[in-house]
């Protein structure tokens, strides 16, 4: 193992010799173990042993990145040569610079009550077959039951030419399910995803078995009792899953500084918030949205980012106003500020860029009963299925999966396919009360080219929106 770390140190030192004004190298080992259980059958088991080194340099004002998984001194030397050469070839008119940050030396890891590596794969498979059986035993018509488990153990060593030396170990567990429940020609489909930083205890802590059967029951009820969702302006109460996706899509993404600056314009897009947008009013005074990599056991937990900057909580929207952008060292330099530790890469072989981690609506003080109590007529949309948002993060749509009519503060029958299609300011400005019940789900956040689908948590409590248009 020391050999790999020595190669990282060598890469940084050699890059400086080759003329890089800044150099960093990242060794990463990932040990994924994944399987799919399709209709009770183990479809495929994937067991990986991935590792390599990525080198990023600044040279003559250009940024170069090169990676290899062949860990010899000659191969690492070759990728350093590649990175320096292609950085110099950029011939930029405006040199890229990084914000100055303190060099740090640290070693952090996430604890596992039950180590992922200590649980035999057959035990993991058996756990999901038991969950599948419990869904099957409900007796509903469920022609497609699809479960996925992904465990990963990520070991990193980061070094840069400013003296940072960081070791880390991050075990993660992610599980998702996709169910199709039918009634005659009618069908309900649901996809849910949960994540955990830590060990196998995550399966218990996340209450996966309970959530799956609850979801199947609600799908069956929607099919049998669901009525058309009302159309028009009315109050809307959204559950944590909906709060979470809205926090991620219309708060987190538009406050990514690289998007604001146009670096992602051709792929993930830009932002309705301009570079001078701090302070812009986008929501009501009760809206606080955070991104926080230090949330314990959330799947995107980290203590230092992939540029060696310590992680901290960022208030993206505070009291309804844009409060802070997510920054890495490159964007922070452009904004004349400091990185807030938001730089991450999905693996050794891609550059680290500005990313969300665990993004959530900050909980407040309302109970569920209090949130419903103020609603004369409206919809409680507990979860969603279809969703999307435009590339400037202004026009979002969330289509209800589990939803109920509210009359005089009471939940009534299920309503199907409630459509919330609102602009970002319309959605957040309508929030008048925020609950206490913070919950997280997991997602893959897509960005960059080559695409980096990265672990992210999406969270929030139940919220109430007043007088919004629903279909």
């Amino acid at each position: 193992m020391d050999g790999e770390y020595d190669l990282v140190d060598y890469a940084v030192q050699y890059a400086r010799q080759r003329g890089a004004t800044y150099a960093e190298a990242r060794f990463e080992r990932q040990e994924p173990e994944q399987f799919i259980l399709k209709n009770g059958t183990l479809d495929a088991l994937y067991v990986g042993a991935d590792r390599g080194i990525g080198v990023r340099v600044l040279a003559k004002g250009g940024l170069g990145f090169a990676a290899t998984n062949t860990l010899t001194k000659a191969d690492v030397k070759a990728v350093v040569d590649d990175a320096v050469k292609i950085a110099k070839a950029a011939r930029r008119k405006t040199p890229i610079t990084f914000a100055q940050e303190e060099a740090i030396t640290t070693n952090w890891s996430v604890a596992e009550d039950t180590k992922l590596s200590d649980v035999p794969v057959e035990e993991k498979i058996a756990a999901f077959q038991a969950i599948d059986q419990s869904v099957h035993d409900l007796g509903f018509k469920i022609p497609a039951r699809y479960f996925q488990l992904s465990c990963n153990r990520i070991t990193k060593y980061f070094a840069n030419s400013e003296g940072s030396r960081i070791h880390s170990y991050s075990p993660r567990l992610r599980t998702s399910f996709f169910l199709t429940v039918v009634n005659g020609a009618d069908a309900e489909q649901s996809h849910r995803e949960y994540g955990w930083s830590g060990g196998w205890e995550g399966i218990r802590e996340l209450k996966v078995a309970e959530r799956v059967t609850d979801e199947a029951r609600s799908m069956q009820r929607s099919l049998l009792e669901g009525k058309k969702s009302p159309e028009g302006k009315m109050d809307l109460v959204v559950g944590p899953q909906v709060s979470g996706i809205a926090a991620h899509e219309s708060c987190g993404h538009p406050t990514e500084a690289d998007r604001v600056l146009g670096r992602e314009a051709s792929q993930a897009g830009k932002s309705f918030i301009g570079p001078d947008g701090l302070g812009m009013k986008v929501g009501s005074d009760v809206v606080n949205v955070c991104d926080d990599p230090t949330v314990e056991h959330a799947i995107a937990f980290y203590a230092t980012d992939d540029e060696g900057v310590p992680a901290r909580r960022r208030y993206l929207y505070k009291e309804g106003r844009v409060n802070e952008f997510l920054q890495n060292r490159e964007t922070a330099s452009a904004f004349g500020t400091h990185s807030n530790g938001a730089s991450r890469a999905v693996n050794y072989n891609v550059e680290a860029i500005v990313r969300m981690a665990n993004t959530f609506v900050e909980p407040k003080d309302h109970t569920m009963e209090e949130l419903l109590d103020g609603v004369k007529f409206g919809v409680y949309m507990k979860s969603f299925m279809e969703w999307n948002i435009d590339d400037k993060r202004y026009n979002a749509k969330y289509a209800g999966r589990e939803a109920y009519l509210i009359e005089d503060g009471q939940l009534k029958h299920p309503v199907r396919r409630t459509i919330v299609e609102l602009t970002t300011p319309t959605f957040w400005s309508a929030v008048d009360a925020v609950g206490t019940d913070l919950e997280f789900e997991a997602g893959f956040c897509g960005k960059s080219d080559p695409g980096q689908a990265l672990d992210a948590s999406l969270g929030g409590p139940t919220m109430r929106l007043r007088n919004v248009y629903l279909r």
Partner: protein
Amino acid sequence: MEDLAVQIVAKAQKLGCQDAVADLVHNRSYQIRFAQNEPVISNRWRESYASVFLVHDKRVVATDIKDLTDVDASLERLVKIAKASQRNPEYAGIAKGKFRYAPFRPDPKILALQDGSDYVHAAINGALAQGAKECAGSFWRYEDEHFLATSNGVEAHDHRASLYLSIRALLSLESSGHGIACATRLSQFDPEKAGRKSGRIASLAKDPKRGQGGRYTVVFDPLIFGSLTDQVAGRLSAYAVLAGFSPYGKKIGKRVASPAVTIWDDGSEESLARKKFDMEGVPTKRTPLIRKGILKTYLHNTSTAKRFKTKTTGNAGLVAPDPHAVFVKPGDWSRDEIFSEVKDGLWLTNTWYTRYQSYVKGDLSTIPRDGIFHIRKGEVVETWKDIRLTDNLVRLMQNVVALSDTTEQMMWWGEVSIPNVVPYALIKDVNITRSAE
């Protein structure tokens, strides 16, 4: 090193595996990303790894071995895990070789290309000349070499290389256009043309107003039509059908598109995805998917084919069958005739974020981006923004009225995940919605 795939298969058999596939891959790709009219980062990869698929007593396991100095230990570990795993009764083996493959070699000029900066600047300059102010995108020189071996007698080699450029040109946040350039021969690569197209659409898209919901006749530019055909092909994987991710279940022989629509998958035809064989070593070939609107087949590997009582289509991935490259048969309308047919409708040039409410029904929405134009009597009368296409995949393809007589190769970040060679399409009665304020 070239013999490593064969050695992996032999070792797997020695360890008791009945079936084994090893694909030794050398990735030597190179990329320049650009934004604000300048390169923002250049990337180069030197990666070698083996994608391995093993079956031990119907227990199926897969891996990517990154440490090629310790292959034996990796295989022993994998077989041990396989033995502890569970049987997959649906597994039905891999294809039996030997096969003959069409000769194909990558363009040596692409292999020799060391610096793509001039292509990036050509694209940017093309867009700026049309009035764009800000350009962003990616240039790629893809290169990967494969040495495939299977326990059923396959020993094959394929060296693939191509060029790709994607450019988005902007006048402002809400006035933008997108262009794509693809080539497997350096002489065919025209990034400036892609730049000009992106700049032309961006210039035409200035001062957009909020669009109106309703049902419209819509001209789909090849990039957004490619997004739809990409969805169709992805949903036609037998795996998607079996897992509930497809509206095409039990639709073989049924009408799933208008008679104007003929679609096939073909990894052997000229495209960025041209390859000699699939992951089982089966030679790639043309596979008709939809002929004159009638669904002909799903995409299969050997296992899914047996489940559906048919033959593999040569679309095996490491685990599930996937499309290689999608081709839509051009129609007999000129581009101008398609636009002239629109009395009061829209022209959409790109989209993203396609998501489903119900995969089995095909209910989806997707968000047009870049130029969105309101057309009357074939002419652009307004530029729109902030609309959403909310419809059904099968219904959209059934409502295709006309296809242009020329096609273009499209591939784009996320939405057009594999090459789609597609014409302009005219689709009637498309449902458009927009956000409430």
